């Protein structure tokens, strides 16, 4: 497939899914009088769109930095860290959490960044297994930590449990959504200028440096922006895996591995996947919608196994 067609396909798919997502809901199919229902659903669709964009591009960037096609912020503990950051804040100082729109995104960003730093310190520089096992350890620890805090904090208990199951899209309002959505889109866009350096990093740090790229600087920027993307996406959806893995793989299959194409295409496909999964979960069971995380896991887990098998083949 030519590159232009791949981008057109992903963009068209996303646009179609957004229209569909605005039309589906418990009130029935359609946009309502004067688009009233569509406006009602718009914050949720915006949240899925922005989070999917950040998840797809962030996943592609993390895979590029670690030179590992199985790296995904959802599996390496970075999303877990973001939710743990939110849990710590909601558990320790719930009264501060809602004072200002910036507080929760900042807590999620700090949690994601702390886990990213641990991942770089403890997991990188060795084998692929070491990176993934370190990430899985961080993921397990932060998930358990989040649930422990949830169990002990009365008022935030349901909120945090829903977050751990990636079920926050349902409570999206414009007030809650606009800032994390803006941060998510900003992080995804800010990753694009790293494309060439990530291509060169593919040949290893020595070769990248000799081709004029600074590996340490590239890694620092990509890790920072991925943490921002993960923190913002977590504020919008909660904990969600597989999109950061699937979107870049689909992008590479469509347009080849150059990051100038993979980063934007993975963002578009990530947004399409998340908007599509959320719409599917709402459309099939309007009375008790299935969370976007559940739908992506049902679809994503088999693909993850397929990718893992293909990689070893």
């Amino acid at each position, binding site marked *: 497939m030519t590159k232009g067609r791949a981008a057109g396909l992903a963009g068209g798919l996303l646009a179609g899914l957004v229209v569909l997502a605005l039309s589906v809901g418990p009130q029935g199919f359609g946009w309502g009088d004067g688009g009233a229902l569509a406006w009602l659903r718009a914050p949720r669709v915006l949240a899925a769109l922005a989070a999917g964009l950040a998840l797809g591009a962030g996943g592609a960037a993390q895979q590029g930095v670690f030179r590992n096609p199985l790296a995904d912020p959802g599996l390496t503990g970075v999303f877990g860290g973001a939710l743990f950051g939110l849990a710590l804040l909601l558990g320790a100082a719930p009264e501060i959490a809602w004072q200002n729109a910036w507080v929760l995104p900042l807590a999620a960003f700090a949690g994601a960044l702390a886990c990213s730093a641990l991942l770089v310190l403890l997991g990188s520089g060795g084998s692929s297994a070491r990176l993934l096992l370190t990430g899985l350890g961080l993921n397990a620890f932060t998930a358990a930590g989040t649930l422990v805090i949830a169990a002990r904090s009365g008022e935030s208990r349901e909120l945090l449990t829903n977050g751990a199951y990636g079920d926050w899209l349902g409570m999206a309002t414009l007030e809650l959504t606009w800032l994390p959505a803006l941060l998510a889109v900003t992080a995804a866009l800010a990753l694009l200028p790293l494309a060439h350096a990530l291509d060169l990093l593919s040949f*290893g740090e*020595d*070769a990248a440096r000799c081709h004029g790229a600074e590996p340490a600087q590239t890694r620092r920027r990509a890790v920072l922006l991925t943490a921002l993307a993960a923190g913002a996406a977590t504020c919008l959806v909660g904990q969600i895996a597989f999109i950061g893995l699937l979107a870049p793989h689909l992008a590479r299959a469509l347009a*080849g591995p150059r990051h100038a194409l993979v980063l934007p295409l993975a963002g578009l496909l990530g947004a399409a996947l998340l908007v599509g999964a959320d719409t599917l979960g709402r459309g099939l069971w309007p009375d008790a919608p299935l969370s976007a995380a559940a739908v992506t896991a049902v679809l994503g887990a088999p693909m993850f196994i397929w990718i893992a098998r293909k990689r070893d083949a």
Partner: protein
Amino acid sequence: MPEAIVTATGLGVQFGAHRAVDGVSLKTAAGTMTAVIGPNGAGKTTLLRTLAGLIPTATGGLDVGGIDPRRASAPTSAKVLAYAPQLPASAWDFNLEELGAISGQPETYGNWLVRLGLNLPGELRLSELSGGERKCAHLALTFAGLTDPFGRALLLDEPTASLDRAKQAALHQVMHDFTRAGAAVLVATHDLAFARTCGEILVLAEGRLVAAGRPDTTLTDDVVASVWG
């Protein structure tokens, strides 16, 4: 005496308890091809990586084209030196056309592929190439970035290993041409016959420089016997 491109004094590299490079001093001039030889583990790769500025903890004095590549920024280093690792690899399965785009000079990259004997369609991916072809695809990436070799250091780590005879011959010609164009070419190799065609030879053993100079005075029977035993 032509201008010195690479000047090193008392270079040392310590990996844990292991002294990989130990007090190596050398000077290579523009328009000189230097073979770096020695048994496995003698420190050839570490020496080339040190000269390329890739080991920031290396001690001693180093000047390549007027800068110290250990301290210089990557873009500045890339202007004075090029380095091709022994076992190039890529995390992603690029095709030849994409590698040309990454080089920034697709046409030049394509010309280098042809010159190294790779007349292959651009859609072929690295995973579809043989080991020797893959090595050439990576070498072409290094060469495509070297717009004007004059006054630059070209550090090649066993470039001809795993290449067939035709590709070896093509690459030897390329290295001689770079040298004639005014580059200081340093080549780590196990090919002693090729080393004898170089202007200078550096013989390394256990991280130390045991002999250096013109091939006829350096690669003597005594040196060969003491180093390779």
